[in-house]
């Protein structure tokens, strides 16, 4: 084949691909436009203009202070921040716990291995929603009433209202910088002041962590088993202690298998955090539900949820792929 012909082939391929992309984009635009037209014909108001209106509902907890007079877009932002607030600790706990259990499943000790296997089989085979509801039920029934909190330590109270601890706060009219410690106090309806971990937050973080840890454990176990036995024997021959073998020989090689699967697991963890709506934690989906209830903009709210999760997932993929590139064998990408 002459070089001219191959250039023409490449050019043709570009044209075909461009046409395909154009067709997909045009098709998607037509579908969205058609849906909006149908809604308009039925007298349904649509559009994202509502985002600037005051929300009119409040959000019970979160890193971002939110007040009912603030606009909807800020409520969505607070919901997104709450999604991150639940997902990040859950991701850390599940990776740590999952790694320990995964290693435990390969331990020579029979009892330890049995416990770890039982954990994995139990947790990954029961639907997450059921686990969350059971956790919420347990917390709701085992802890004391908010009006009769238990004092664990001076300033640390535990009840159905949550776990309250002293927290730095800025004084009256003070700036951003904290000036004193605010101590939780017992009031008529329970403990107020300080910082509180609500039962809903504990439920979702613990539920997600325990559930994902089971999957992480399997990923870690598979990663370790993928390292050829000869490598371990070689490590032993060099006189490395078991912990050293794990750290120097096995884990660096196992990570190459672990990281891509772990990326998937983290992606599903973040998406699973949307189940928090069932246990009363105000994350993104909960805010969107409330918004749909108050103004009926279901189409727009679902589009926002989709866009946000897509963006979050792409960010995680990007970060994990960068990390993967570092642990992968050179020349193997």
């Amino acid at each position: 084949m002459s070089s001219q012909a191959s250039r023409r082939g490449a050019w043709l391929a570009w044209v075909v691909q461009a046409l395909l992309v154009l067709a997909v984009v045009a098709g998607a635009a037509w579908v969205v436009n058609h849906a909006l037209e149908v809604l308009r014909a039925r007298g349904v108001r649509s559009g994202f203009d509502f985002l600037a209106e005051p929300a009119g509902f409040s959000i019970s907890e979160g890193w971002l202070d939110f007040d009912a007079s603030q606009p909807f877009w800020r409520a969505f932002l607070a919901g997104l921040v709450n999604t991150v607030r639940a997902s990040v600790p859950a991701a850390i706990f599940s990776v740590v716990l999952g790694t320990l259990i995964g290693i435990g499943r390969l331990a020579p000790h029979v009892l330890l291995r049995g416990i770890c296997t039982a954990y994995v089989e139990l947790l990954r085979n029961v639907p997450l929603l059921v686990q969350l509801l059971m956790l919420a039920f347990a917390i709701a029934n085992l802890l004391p009433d908010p009006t009769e909190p238990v004092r664990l330590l001076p300033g640390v109270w535990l009840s159905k209202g949550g776990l309250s601890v002293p927290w730095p706060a800025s004084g009256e009219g003070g700036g951003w910088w904290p000036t004193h410690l605010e101590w939780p106090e017992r009031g008529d309806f329970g403990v107020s002041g300080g910082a509180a971990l609500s039962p809903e937050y504990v439920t979702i973080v613990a539920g997600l962590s325990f559930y994902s840890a089971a999957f992480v454990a399997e990923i870690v176990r598979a990663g370790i088993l993928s390292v050829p036995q000869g490598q371990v024997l070689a490590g032993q021959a060099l006189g490395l202690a078991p912990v050293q073998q794990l750290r120097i020989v096995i884990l660096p090689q196992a990570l190459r298998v672990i990281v891509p699967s772990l990326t998937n697991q983290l992606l599903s963890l973040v998406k699973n955090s949307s189940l928090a709506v069932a246990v009363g934690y105000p994350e993104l989906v909960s805010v969107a539900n409330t918004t749909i209830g108050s103004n009926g903009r279901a189409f727009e709210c679902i589009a926002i949820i989709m866009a946000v999760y897509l963006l979050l997932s792409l960010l995680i993929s990007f970060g994990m792929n960068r990390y993967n590139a570092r642990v992968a064998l050179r020349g193997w990408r």
Partner: protein
Amino acid sequence: MKNRFRPALAAAATIAALATAAPALAGKTLDAVKQRGTVKCGVTNGVAGFSAPDTQGNWSGLDVDTCRAIAAAVLGDPKKVDFVPLNSQQRFSALQAGEIDILARNTTWTLTRDASLGFNFTTITYYDGQGFLVPKKLKVTSARQLKNATICTQSGTTNEKNVSDYFRAQNIPVKTVVFESFEASFKAFFSGRCQAFTTDASALAGLRNKEAPNPDDYVILPELISKEPLAPLVRRGDDEWFAIAKWVPNALIEAEEFGVTQANADDLKANSKDPAQQRLVGTGEDLGKLLGLDKDWSFRAIKAVGNYGEMFERNVGPKSVLKLPRGSNNLWNKGGLIYAPPVR
């Protein structure tokens, strides 16, 4: 390359599903109902007195009876109703998308819902208001004493917004914990997570009687913080169906006013000389044809569920578990707000 496009493709597929799921304008709902042979009625997953299934899956309640009356008027059989249970977030999309013909799901008539969702609200079948349920041991006697309290409620309802408006106006800080399902929200309250529970007053009585571990441990506070006129609603753009959905409940209200009951309807059909009664039992002038129905439309509706007063008594009144007083829901000439334009 492939990997990078996959999420975008998935998103496009979801949008496509959304868009194609919405069928083209349904056109004549009445024709569709007649052809299908059933009325599709959107109801709750179970709110005592309004729409709740029993252990055999038979639905009962005020909203359920409204749908049965419409089925009786349109199809001649009150049993020809498909009840579609919907949660509070699903209900509006279901009606917009044409999954149901009428939404009778204790839904509050508000300007936003009426003017921007593509709906028409029909006749108000219950005048409600939002109230609070609190444990007796807290010794709270007014909603104003709920400073710093945690309040449980359901998301996607007018209740969530009302509670925020009310306490903001009073400048009382409270915390609300919202749950996706009604059941999860009241269960959290009865387990002690919240110091108060808020929803429409009609539901509070039922919850206290049916769900509380011990009903006497709970009190309903005197304040009603909002107006909640509950009315069935239909899609815009089909005035014929709108008229039917509006006039069947109107006829039931007028039946109470003129003393036509489930029991005496047959007798009145044979013997009544009162023109108002005659119109209702189908022996006066033919009003049914103006609605696209036959002459006996209201007679069948009354035979199926009784007049409004009987519906009230059986579902939410003295003969029900709720035992709610008539109050605002009495007829206009008996001191209440229930008033139907004349069926003539």
